[in-house]
């Protein structure tokens, strides 16, 4: 299925959970924040929420800033 991640279109396996998606990308869960279709998703929910066609995912992290 097609989803948009950080603004880019990507192919992803159907019914992938957010947690699985992040693991696939090699990201450690503690280091990121996830927003799905404009709503922040709590870390506890990542395992339960499955991605669908045309979902918009934002994967964010904290960086140095002033």
């Amino acid at each position, binding site marked *: 299925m097609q989803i948009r991640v*950080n*603004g880019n279109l990507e192919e992803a396996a159907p019914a992938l959970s957010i947690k699985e998606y992040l693991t696939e*990308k*090699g*990201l*450690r869960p*503690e*280091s*990121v*924040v996830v*927003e799905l279709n*404009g709503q*922040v998703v*709590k870390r506890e929910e990542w395992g339960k929420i499955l991605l669908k066609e045309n979902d918009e995912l*934002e*994967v*964010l*992290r*904290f*960086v*140095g*800033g*002033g």
Partner: protein
Amino acid sequence: MEDKLLIGGQELESRLFIGTGKFSSHEIIPKVIAASGSQVITMAIRRVNFFNEQDNVLNYIDKKCILLPNTSGARNAEEAVRIARIAREAGCGNWVKIEVITDNKYLLPDNYETIRATEILVKEGFVVLPYMSPDLMAAKRLEEVGAAAVMPLGAPIGTNRGLMTRELIRILIAESKLPVIVDAGIGRPSQAAEAMEMGAAAVLVNTAIATAQDPVQTARAFCLAVRAGRMAFLSGPGAVQEYAVASSPLTGFLHKQGGE
């Protein structure tokens, strides 16, 4: 002497806030924070770069510090609000520095969007510290909508030019009931001291420390400068005779009429 800074329900001993941007590496940040004595640290939120995963800067910040995520990247109030909510959800606490910049040439903040974002976020229970251009009317509006402080720029971000806006900042300090935290443009410890002597509640320093040859030593210098400036402010100015008495007296007539 008890001289704590009261913001957002917190009592702070340090009046130096520092930023975590522009450092050559995150590793030096804990030492910088320790040397600065800062209790409020800012950071930003960005999209993850999947090809080059980097550390979460939060790992380098002492757990005792108050996190002040900024909304840098936001070009309008809605984007700033979104970033603030993300930061809170991520466990950053409920403090947020609103930074709405639509000007990429000078990085000057958009006061209007900042006021709008502040109004929304205050209602959602955030402790809002808005970064703004030192305009008295904007500051009054921010006060009205519930900001916890105002953060006027001393000079454009990264310029290290000191208090170019000092007269406007002085007016804010005199007229605003909110703590005035000078943010942006402070390039040297003496400039931080100057801001504190004028009566600023605190200063935020990022570029000057992060890009110094020796950031840790520089952080220490800023720590001392902020304390010195604050002490000077609290003890009041000395008498400096600036006036000269002109040749033609204006009150001579009182003596002529026999001191009636």
